[in-house]
């Protein structure tokens, strides 16, 4: 045990030199008893003794939480109504006290517990919380399986088995081993799932790969956000019908170090490189592809893939579009994190240059840029149905220069909030002032399609 410390500020500096907030995962597997318990039974009941005793069980997989996602949220959820770096769920919001106020690029899971009721042209309508994001099952936090979509849209992954660990590999086995972004996963012979990237020997991980750090000749970095890669199949779902090992590599992307923040003044720009849509297709296999109707395809579905470059017209639209009726923008200031794109590269050094939160990188798209799932959706949750970044169920996102809401003093604007308050609507825009948009702003689909 550590003795009590009586410290001056200088001594504290020494103490802190050995740790940081990122030390918990550091790009790979954390320390074991951060998530698992080895010696405690459920309720701390004494183990039976004697030859006929029944040994009491601990929690499944010896987790410290009631389930996988609860274990994660014990740390990553917060009551605090203010963005903080590693928090991805505002618990008080779920109780109706505050708006979800964590502004990570992936979104605040509190939205999946926020149900809104409104009248749509006289018809009582409900925007169920479960429609707002990935319903990662977390018993300790009241997140239950999606009751409507029993499997992943476009795939077979069962809603009942969805957890944080469905996407994020809690053991952080995947690593980037060279400057070209090669991903490897070392496994003991005979224990893997024959993923193409399984190797017997690889470099050790020395830190996170989410923020642009480069591997060296002797040390690897983790992959973006500990996402699972080829062959990833958690033991908890091995053998479950509809769940197959991942086939796609983790996406190439770099986030700024401070990413959970209001975007009232500047955007939080995650530099997405390539592979995001392909990675989403591990579970949402058939929901989008690159064979879209615009280039002769017959699927009549929106493109989303590394092959789906924007094309001359869309590219011009993106870089010129400012807001409804204003197409006077330039490529130098065209970027918005409300409609991000992939840069079409796995060059992490170049991506790192663009991953900022100070507004210094507002450059728009180029001929390499492509549309991806996250161009329209948030990865965790949003305030709108289908976890889209903005609502597509109203004509206007702003009304008379303000965000609409049930509490709007402009009675004609109230219905456009779809049951949300003005604060809640503004939170879905990550606190951007309504004045960045037109007085009557239409769907942000128009950032690419410029139909307004």
């Amino acid at each position: 045990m550590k003795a009590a410390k009586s410290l001056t500020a200088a001594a504290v500096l020494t103490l802190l030199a050995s740790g940081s907030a990122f030390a918990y995962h550091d790009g790979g597997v954390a320390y074991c008893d951060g998530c698992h318990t080895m010696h405690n039974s459920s309720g701390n009941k004494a183990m039976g003794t004697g030859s006929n005793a029944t040994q009491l069980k601990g929690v499944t997989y010896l987790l410290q939480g009631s389930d996988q996602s609860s274990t994660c949220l014990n740390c990553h959820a917060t009551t605090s109504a203010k963005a903080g770096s590693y928090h991805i769920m505002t618990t008080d919001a779920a109780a109706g006290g505050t708006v979800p106020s964590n502004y990570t690029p992936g979104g605040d899971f509190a939205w999946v517990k926020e149900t809104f009721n409104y009248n749509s042209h006289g018809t009582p309508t409900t925007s169920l919380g479960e429609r707002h994001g990935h319903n990662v099952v977390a018993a300790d936090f009241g997140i239950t399986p999606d009751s409507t979509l029993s499997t992943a849209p476009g795939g077979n992954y069962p809603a009942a088995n969805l957890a944080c660990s469905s996407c994020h590999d809690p053991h952080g086995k995947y690593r980037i081993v060279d400057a070209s972004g090669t991903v490897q996963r070392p496994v003991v012979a005979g224990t893997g799932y024959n993923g193409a990237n399984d190797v017997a020997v690889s470099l050790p991980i020395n830190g996170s790969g989410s923020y642009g750090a480069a591997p060296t000749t002797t040390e690897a970095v983790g992959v973006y956000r500990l996402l699972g890669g080829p062959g990833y199949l958690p033991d908890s779902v091995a053998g479950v019908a509809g769940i197959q090992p991942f086939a796609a590599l983790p996406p190439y992307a770099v986030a700024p170090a401070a990413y959970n923040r209001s975007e009232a003044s500047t955007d939080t720009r995650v530099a997405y490189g390539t592979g995001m849509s392909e990675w989403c297709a591990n579970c949402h296999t058939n929901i989008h592809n690159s064979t879209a109707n615009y280039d002769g395809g017959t699927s009549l579905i929106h493109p989303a893939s590394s092959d789906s470059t924007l094309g001359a017209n869309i590219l011009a639209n993106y870089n010129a579009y400012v807001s409804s009726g204003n197409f006077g923008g330039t490529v130098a200031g065209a970027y918005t994190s409300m409609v991000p794109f992939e840069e079409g590269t796995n060059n992490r050094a170049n991506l790192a240059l663009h991953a900022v939160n100070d507004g210094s990188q507002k450059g728009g798209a180029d001929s390499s840029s492509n549309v991806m799932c996250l161009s329209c959706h948030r990865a965790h949750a949003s305030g709108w149905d289908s976890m889209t970044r903005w609502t597509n169920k109203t004509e206007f996102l702003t009304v008379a220069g303000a965000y609409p809401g049930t509490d709007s003093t402009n009675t004609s604007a109230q219905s456009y909030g779809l049951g949300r308050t003005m604060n809640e609507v503004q939170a879905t825009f990550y606190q951007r002032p309504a004045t960045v948009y037109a007085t009557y702003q239409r769907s942000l689909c128009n950032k690419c399609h410029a139909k307004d």
Partner: protein
Amino acid sequence: MYKIYRGMLLSLILVTALASPAPAALFRAAYLYTLSDFNGAIPYNWVNLAVDRRGEETYVADPAGRSVRVFNDSGMEVYRFGDNGDFRNITAVAVADSGEIFVLSRSNASYAVTRCDYRGEPKARLAMKGLPPEYATDFVPDTICWHGDHLYLVDRNTMKVALTDREGSFDSGYELGTILGFSKKQISESGMVGFSVDNEGDLLFTVPVFFSAYLVTPGHQVRSFGMRGSTPGKFNIVSGIASDERGNIYVADTLRCVVMIFDRDFSFQAEFGFRGLEPGNLIAPMELVVNHDRVYVAQSRARGVSVYRVFQTQPSATSTKGG
């Protein structure tokens, strides 16, 4: 660790620390009840708590009901106020020695503190006066408490604490991140979770990402304790922290689902709760407050606020240090 659990109400938990040498059984914790109204236990999640030691009452800031609910020493709701919309988004509540009640509300990046009389009738919206620049911007309190003659406004994300009088006039402040020597980056990446003020006016708080609990005196002297681990007395994800009149310190561990008891020298004494679904167990404990021998623990999973009675059977003998 050896524990006898007899289930249900007034179950007695005999706690001894698993350490070498093993201390005598100094503490016993008995689960009493869960805060309730006439419909039964109230399924709160991670609510903010305060106590009025004079009136033996417990206050819960209820964000769902946008109200403050008051419970007697039997854990039954006896009063509520604010459900008429007086406070909007309630975040925290504090009770002054005079009986005045302070309610903190937040909306986006703004906050308001309302002073109420003992009946919960709003008397004044505090106009914060004399705030220095570092407390005028980038300072949005998310919890409050009262000690002595001061209201403590706490922004756990920026690790700043402002002390005001009952009218909202600034008196002094603590920039705890600076006091601890944290860089701006470390403050933004960590922040504190548990916070309280002990009888001597020392600030007690936890920083889970550093697996540590801290005590900062009014003179800015710093002491800390805690060791990462999952065995008794060690810290996984620590959260609420509070002290009793004897100086014992109670620390909740959200991940291990226990409340740990340390003496005034930070020597680990015992722990209670434990993950499980029995009434006396805990699921993801977060905030806690202590009122005499009662410990109130807010949990997740709609398990509400569990109340324990802690007995200290003999003077503490030093055992294992600091978690």
